[in-house]
């Protein structure tokens, strides 16, 4: 399975599942509602096809760099999920 396919798969049902979970947290505690809405909006924006197209475009060069031994790390909080 190539990276493009997995991105498409993960952007569907799994993203919807996360949105359901965060929405439930916002419903459970009204004080969390604004932050929940903010996170849901950012998540929906991230899985928007236009954004995914930009992500797709960056991947081949990064895969080539990794295979060439060029490592360029980042500090993503979602890496620890």
């Amino acid at each position, binding site marked *: *399975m190539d*990276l493009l396919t*997995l*991105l498409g*798969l*993960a*952007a*569907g*049902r*799994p*993203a*919807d*599942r*996360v*949105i*359901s*979970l*965060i929405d439930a*947290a916002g419903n459970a505690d009204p004080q969390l509602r604004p*932050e929940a809405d903010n*996170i849901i909006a*950012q*998540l929906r924006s*991230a*899985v928007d096809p236009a*954004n*995914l197209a930009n*992500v797709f475009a*960056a*991947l081949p060069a*990064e*895969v080539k*760099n*990794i295979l060439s031994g060029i*490592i*360029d*790390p*980042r*500090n*993503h*909080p*979602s*890496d*620890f*999920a």
Partner: protein
Amino acid sequence: MRCILAAVLLSLLTGAAQAQTPPRVFGGAVSLNGIWFDDPEAEVRNDLEAGLNARASLSPHISLVGSGVYGIRNKYFRYSAGVRVTATDVDNQAFSVGLGLQYRGSGYYELKPDEWAPDASVGWRPWPQLPDVVLVAQGWYGIESDKAGALAGIRYVLPF
């Protein structure tokens, strides 16, 4: 009283300076999760888990990720390993969304089958003065079982 205020101010300033930590390839975190399995016929519907998460950040978008956790109430071990692509600003250390694929497995019969599962993850550092504390949420569905699940948790990133 002044010493206490000075200590608090110093810790906040130190925390603010640490909010943008230099990226490292390898990272690990202690984890605590609430987890929900969406199979209405399953024996294990939810649990509280404790364990470890690890990552190797290889490029701005691509990381290898994995976890090993223990389900406290149902007494199971569960693991996952795979790749994750960050779909948001790669230089935003406070918030990110990752899309990926992991192999999820367990020795516990009720959590079978072991299978590949696409996933979507959210990570959030809500407190700049506590950059090692991360709130996370993840949803996945198993390709073989066609069953979904989700977790929400807190991570403490280890200092190495």
